[in-house]
């Protein structure tokens, strides 16, 4: 049996099971009683099995800021996708790959994860190594690596996490 770090709160268990059940209904899209009852049983089983792992701390402000960050990130993705397509289709293939190391000022695990994920998601730059707040980034050419060095993404993420307790 797994070791439980904190007592299970029935309210939280019920909430978790309901979220899982909603996900089940969404994916199965069938309202026959056999499917619904199976889903109910399994969502309670999964919620019970995972009950001891984390406490439920709602962070609505943080999540809404992260949601607002995605459209901006998508704009950056489109921008660098077009740049990268131009590089690949150029007859002379004018690339200058380079490894650059970046030190960030972020002091949250979640913020570093978000930063590394954003860098990798943006075509043309890949996070190759992460060690606490030092990242090694591989960029395909000069303008793309400039985009990492001027820390535009990092300042956006610092803005998102500005009122959170540091944990790094």
């Amino acid at each position, binding site marked *: 049996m797994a070791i439980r770090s904190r007592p299970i709160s029935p309210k939280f268990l019920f909430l978790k099971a309901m979220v899982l059940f909603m996900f089940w209904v969404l*994916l199965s899209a069938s309202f026959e009683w056999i499917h619904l009852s199976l889903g109910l049983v399994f969502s309670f089983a999964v919620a019970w099995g995972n009950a001891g792992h984390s406490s439920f701390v709602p962070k609505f402000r943080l999540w809404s800021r992260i949601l607002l960050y995605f459209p901006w990130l998508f704009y950056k993705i489109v921008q660098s*996708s077009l740049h990268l397509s131009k590089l690949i*289709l150029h007859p002379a293939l004018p690339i200058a*790959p380079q490894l650059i190391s970046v030190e960030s000022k972020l002091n949250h695990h979640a913020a570093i994860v978000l930063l590394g994920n954003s860098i990798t998601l943006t075509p043309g730059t890949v996070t190759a190594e992460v060690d606490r707040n030092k990242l090694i980034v591989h960029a395909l050419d000069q303008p793309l690596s400039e985009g990492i060095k001027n820390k535009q993404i990092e300042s956006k993420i610092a803005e998102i996490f500005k009122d959170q307790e540091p944990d790094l």
Partner: protein
Amino acid sequence: MEILSIIFIVAGLFFLIVAAIGVIRLPDVFSRSHAVSLTDSLGAFLMLVGIALHGGLGTNMLKILVVLALLYIINPVITHATVRAALRSGLKPWKKETS
């Protein structure tokens, strides 16, 4: 709606083809991973949005949105794991010869 979905799918195909050309033309693992991430982010996004518009409103559209969200979380992790493995095994990134 039909025309819009065709536009999205064709645009997605364009990025997928560019990414395939990139995988062939680029010199090493690191730069090829960039071409693959082009497929992951914009190519897959445009294709899936095109398919979602083609299917119309309904549970299928929601399922495609779930797929899209998972894709955007998981794909960078896979790319990062590949590139980190290449770096740790001592592979040197390709550099342009200065001659």
